[in-house]
């Protein structure tokens, strides 16, 4: 017999990033600026707490929503940092990475036939997640002229007024774009006017370099219609520990928890102990990593400007999103791997509006970054 793969899965093409991964793996002396995760390890105190929890035999499930101590700390943290107030018992759900949270939100809050407006270019999982949940995707393009920010007009023109849900991510992967509170207010206004639910992926919230992060949920009338996703992967360099969290009003987290309790039961226990310690004692480590990212960011932007490559001043995450010197960014990225052994990801892998751009990750040590930029300079000459 053969397996008859479901239509849902058939409808989703494999990730466009895969091809570049395979090309990069073939090269020996590759310097990769194609990595979507920190080059740092999790702060030692967090790793040490994970080890200690294992030594003490803390290897069972936790409460479905996550350990209460962790939820309380998350509540304190997001209040202190982002002025977000959520109840640890009813409005916080600890998930296996922010990715699980996003999937839960789609499945719990999107019905077949619902329209989900997705900001583009964007992280690769947003569109497939909608399809897996049976929703219809409406792309909302952002443009380099607007520094890849969402605008009221952009939402209007894309037809997002008829959507049920709007998905956005700032600071953004792949563009590195950020939005200030004032800029987000336009989006909030649109969401209120057209009664949209907003899914706001804020996984890079701690990594902003030009202004403090504002969560759209803090804007007037937005808390009741917003689901916020965050986690420990980026700021705390804990990607492999798979730990995120969702902040939303009780009816939303309760619905999401209904799926989570059957499918995941609880987020990884060891990671939860690491996260408690991370929130308790790792502010300095996060600040130090942020300083390093910011220096690399300035370095990369300076180098692109010296090479005459246009790049808007991305102010968040750890990505620069320069315009590709060639019309065909896919061909450029392919040849750059083959001739100079430098991997970057073409913007087209991140959906509409990414074409003609390259995602350049600066989550790489300065020495390698220097060498990679020198090779790119050589290549474009």
């Amino acid at each position: 017999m053969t397996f008859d793969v479901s239509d849902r899965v058939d409808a989703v093409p494999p990730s466009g990033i895969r091809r570049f991964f395979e090309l990069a793996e073939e090269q020996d002396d590759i310097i990769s600026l194609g990595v979507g995760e920190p080059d740092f390890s999790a702060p030692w105190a967090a790793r040490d707490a994970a080890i200690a929890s294992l030594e003490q035999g803390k290897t069972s499930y936790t409460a479905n929503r996550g350990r209460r101590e962790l939820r309380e700390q998350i509540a304190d943290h997001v209040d202190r940092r982002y002025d977000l107030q959520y109840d640890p018992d009813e409005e916080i759900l600890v998930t296996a990475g922010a990715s699980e949270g996003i999937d839960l939100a789609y499945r719990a809050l999107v019905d077949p036939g619902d329209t989900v407006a997705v900001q583009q270019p964007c992280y690769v999982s947003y569109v497939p997640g909608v399809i897996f949940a049976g929703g219809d995707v409406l792309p909302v393009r952002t443009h380099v002229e607007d520094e890849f920010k969402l605008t009221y007009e952009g939402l209007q023109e894309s037809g997002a007024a008829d959507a049920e849900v709007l998905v956005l991510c700032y600071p953004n992967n792949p563009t590195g774009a950020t939005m200030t509170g004032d800029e987000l207010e336009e989006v909030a206004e649109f969401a209120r006017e057209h009664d949209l639910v907003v899914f706001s992926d804020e996984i890079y919230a701690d990594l902003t370099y030009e202004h403090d992060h504002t969560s759209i949920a803090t804007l007037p009338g937005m808390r009741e219609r917003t689901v916020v996703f965050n986690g420990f992967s980026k700021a705390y360099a804990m990607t492999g520990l798979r730990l995120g969290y969702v902040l939303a009003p009780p009816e939303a987290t309760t619905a999401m928890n209904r799926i989570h309790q059957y499918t995941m039961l609880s987020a990884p226990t060891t990671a939860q102990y690491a996260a408690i310690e991370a929130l308790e004692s790792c502010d300095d480590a996060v600040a130090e990593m942020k300083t390093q990212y910011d220096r690399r960011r300035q370095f990369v932007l300076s180098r692109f400007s010296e090479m005459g490559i246009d790049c808007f001043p991305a102010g968040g995450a750890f990505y620069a999103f320069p315009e590709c010197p060639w019309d065909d960014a896919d061909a450029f990225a392919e040849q750059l791997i083959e001739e100079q052994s430098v991997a970057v990801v073409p913007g087209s892998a991140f959906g509409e509006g990414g074409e003609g751009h390259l995602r350049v990750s600066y989550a790489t040590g300065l020495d390698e970054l220097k060498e990679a930029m020198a090779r790119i300079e050589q290549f474009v000459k």
Partner: protein
Amino acid sequence: MSSRDDVLELLRENARYTVEDIARQIDADANEVEGIIADLEAEGVVKGYRAVVDWDETEEERVRAAVELNVTLDRETSYNDVAERIAKFPKVESLHLVSGDYDFMMEVEGDSMREVSHFISEKVAPVPEITQTVTHYMMDSYKESGIFFGDGDDDDRLSVSP
């Protein structure tokens, strides 16, 4: 943070960064960075630059010792006087006045254990103010000036990821 603090921090991270690379990282002008470094040196904030060497990776034999020194002072002699007298010996790598059970913490480097022992017994111990020396030979080094010795971690991240 001022540009001056940034420059100092970057030099502490890697004193071999070029002026241009420092400027790129802090969005400053190379001439400005050059000027800041010149000021830091002229004002005595930056005393010098050296390589951090793991002697185990060389053919050369190096012996290092941490030495505790106790002193007695009198009205005419201060800690500074004793310190200056000891610090002038080239074998003394570092010298600090410390709190606790002894007065000075001294690091000495030489080509052999005999040479180091000889130096301490012949040059340091006879200094009249020094009443006691306790010598700890260093057996292995794991980290120095913030730099880990050993092989370092491999980057085991996927080469391309979303």
